[in-house]
């Protein structure tokens, strides 16, 4: 059942220079894109840089753009492509390239550090925490996050706007604020900080982050909009109202149907050669 597939893989370094390198390589039944990258390493390009750990969608290391779509390479099956189609793998566009498919994701660690940590009630001894399942379920959804940074890579507020990186924590870390806010035992008030320190206001609830999340976390609906609503208790934000109105499921599907995604129209931020519209009909 094997066949020979055509691949194009971004080879480049931290200077920002690089090019797509074409390969022809064997593909066997049941394989995923990461298997093919490994085969290239073992047989044709021993120094091809790629980041991965678990190969089971659990660690969030192997993020890249496959035919322009942000994906985990270990969870993208080769059977989602036509055998004649050339599969193009490029690094995440929003972060600086270190080498080949590996990007520098330190931005995310910096943002993580800016969020005040969990603050339990002071008089509660270990072993005495009581929480009901129903109350932990909401924040638990967000704790499924494997920190693949695909949402961070996709959100146009950073993808298109390098200058926002300073003030905007991005969906993953706004979700973290929301998670702590929903923690049944957290005593800190977080809603003002969300708006003022972490840039919740930059989010205009396009839901692109939700679309790419491999854990299927409803980032926008369940984390960001509720957070905005909490903020809106004191401040009026027309987007919340708009979001409820406009971005219904059908609208998202309609946008898919046109083949257009809300990623960006800007040029390649880190040398990635693909314009946003080249996102092919792959992998769902």
């Amino acid at each position, binding site marked *: 059942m094997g066949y020979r597939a055509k691949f194009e893989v971004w080879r480049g*370094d*931290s200077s920002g220079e690089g090019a797509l390198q074409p390969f022809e390589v064997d593909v*066997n*039944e*049941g*394989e*995923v894109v990461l*298997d093919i990258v490994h085969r290239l*390493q*073992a*047989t044709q390009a*021993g*120094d*091809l*840089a790629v*980041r*991965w*750990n*678990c*190969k*089971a*969608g*659990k*660690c*969030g*290391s192997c993020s890249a753009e496959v035919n322009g779509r942000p994906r985990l390479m270990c*969870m993208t*099956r080769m059977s989602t492509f036509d055998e004649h189609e050339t599969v193009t793998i490029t690094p995440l566009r929003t972060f600086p390239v*270190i*080498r*080949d498919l*590996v990007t*520098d*994701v330190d931005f995310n*660690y910096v943002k*993580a*550090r800016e969020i*005040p*940590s*969990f603050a*339990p009630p002071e008089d*509660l001894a*270990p*072993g005495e*925490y*009581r*929480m*009901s*399942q129903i109350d*932990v379920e909401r*924040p*638990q959804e967000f*704790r*499924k*996050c*494997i*920190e693949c940074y695909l949402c961070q890579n996709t959100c146009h507020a950073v993808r298109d706007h390098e200058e926002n990186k300073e003030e905007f924590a991005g969906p993953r870390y706004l979700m973290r604020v929301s998670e*702590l806010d929903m*923690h049944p035992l*957290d005593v800190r008030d977080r809603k003002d900080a969300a708006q003022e320190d972490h840039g919740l206001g930059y989010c205009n609830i396009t839901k692109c982050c939700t679309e790419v999340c491999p854990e299927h976390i409803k980032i926008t609906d369940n984390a960001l909009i509720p957070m905005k609503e909490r903020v809106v208790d004191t401040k009026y934000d027309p987007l919340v109202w708009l979001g409820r109105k406009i971005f219904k499921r059908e609208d998202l599907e309609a946008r898919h149907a046109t083949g257009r995604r809300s990623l960006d129209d800007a040029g390649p931020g880190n040398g990635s050669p693909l314009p946003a519209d080249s996102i092919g009909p792959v992998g769902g």
Partner: protein
Amino acid sequence: MADEADGTAVSHHSYDVLVIGAGGAGLRAAIEARMRGKRVAILSKSLFGKAHTVMAEGGIAASMGNANPRDNWEVHYRDTMRGGKFLNNWRMAELHAKEAPQRVWELETYGALFDRTPEGKISQRNFGGHQFPRLAHVGDRTGLELIRTLQQKIVSLQQEDHARTGDYESDLKVFHEFTVTELFKDGDRIAGAFGYRRPTGEYLCFHAPAVVLATGGIGKSFKVTSNSWEYTGDGHALALRAGARLINMEFVQFHPTGMVWPPSVKGILVTESVRGDGGVLKNSEGERFMFRYIPDVFREQYATSEDEGDRWYDDADNNRRPPELLPRDEVARAINNEVKEGRGSPAGGVYLDIASRRTTEFIRKRLPSMYHQFKELADVDITAEPMEVGPTCHYVMGGVEVDPDTASTVVPGLFAAGEVAGGMHGSNRLGGNSLSDLLVFGCRAGAGAADYLDGLGTAPAVGNEAVDAALAEAEKPFSVRGEENAYTLHQELQQTMNDLVGIIRRADEMEMALKRLAELRDRIPRVGVTGGRAYNPGWHLAMDLRNMLMVSQCIAMAALERQESRGGHTRDDYPAMDENWRRELLNCSLADGPDGPEVQLNHQPQPAMRPDLFDLFELDELKKYYTGDELGGHRADRGM
């Protein structure tokens, strides 16, 4: 030799404690050492938050008694010793059983959100070898919760430091994507470590009087494994080279249920919770074959009919558990045998069926990532069809010999905790006992290192020659151009271990394996790499290969020597458990040979169990493992 211009400059960094590894054990050790006022660096091969621990699924064992109030540390202790067939270091098993609940509760104070019981306590689930539901869990992503919680605790400590010093990293710094290649000593004592940044290839020398090894396991020496690329036995090899000893290396756990299809995912874990939550194993004839494989030592604790086994899920007090939940070594051997005798599935496994036993809703709620994993990787809907599963190399019981209370090794200043340490699990680890092990002994290692520093006289120093030698070793693959390919040698090594030192072992096969490993030992120094130092996987693998080889030699030598079958070590030619071997541990160390250091194997006695712990067991059970003289001390003989 260090040179700015050609990229081989070495930068120097000083800390009180170096923690090598950012999994559960390493992070818990770092937290403890930091909270005791030490300046700590954490070094890890992968990104912060992605260590192997993230993959753990089922849960963390601690006798909190939330699901069954009859549970307590004594029951947990007994289960652990039974699971390890009494080869466990009893003191480690005791500390582990006693301290696991505290360590789990502490996670809640860091922000962890476990699944809950109706009373709002931490929910606990059933697992193989545990008498009561004991595993705290978060769906089937418990390891992710553990890692994230500890990661966030580290961040919160950094925030405290920032408030005090203006620098998040003043007292606790993570160097991620950093590989340690060598440890340094000053005389007998540990003095620091050397390694490279994976992204850039820059070399760093750390000066630190205390080093905690928390590097995890060795699974990448085997072809079919649930382990990631990180598991190349680096910590085991670093310890050996620094003069420490490894014990129990013959004991490698093959998890009974890894995926077998498609070939590219062969080995990926299917969590034991599938069985804990009601899944059963069937052969190609539709038979629940595990009932035929209950060994004598466990006969009293397991159901003998399907009805009884099924009743147990709802009424565990009045029924015995189904044999699908026997310890892992038993289940793995049974599956192996079914396949060998021609009752396997098309892809060479057996069937794991939960679809016909639980509702779709239940399965998707309790096992979401398994559902996801099979759907995405194998196109199998586990709520509708059975899974195909077979044994996969999963965990190494063997590891660095440590003092149970302080996690110190025989090398002053060197500590080890987590999977890299040996002794705690004896010949076989129970599911869920690793995550608790990480926290209990990670914490103790951090404390042990802090205490060691408090009693330290003059600080040890790193010698220049040692740094030059470590640098030369790391540079070597760049000067050997193209002779041997690291990927090819790695595949040969994996195939050798898989075929010849795998789940069922024989003397002639292991002798053959040792011969092949000796050949690989000659070839590995000839591995050359292409490309530069920046994020070069070929170079990384070339460096890791030396460690995999050394660890594989330890496993094969110890496995050949132990002429019995026990836990994770099964000999075709010595199928029985032998009481005399229960008193013996095998240890590996390095000795000078004609072509450099060689692995050597020695025997050492297994310390006798403290009488009050011995008395926790019934005499009848002990008789299955012990003979004559040692049984004399039991309470039954003292008329109690």
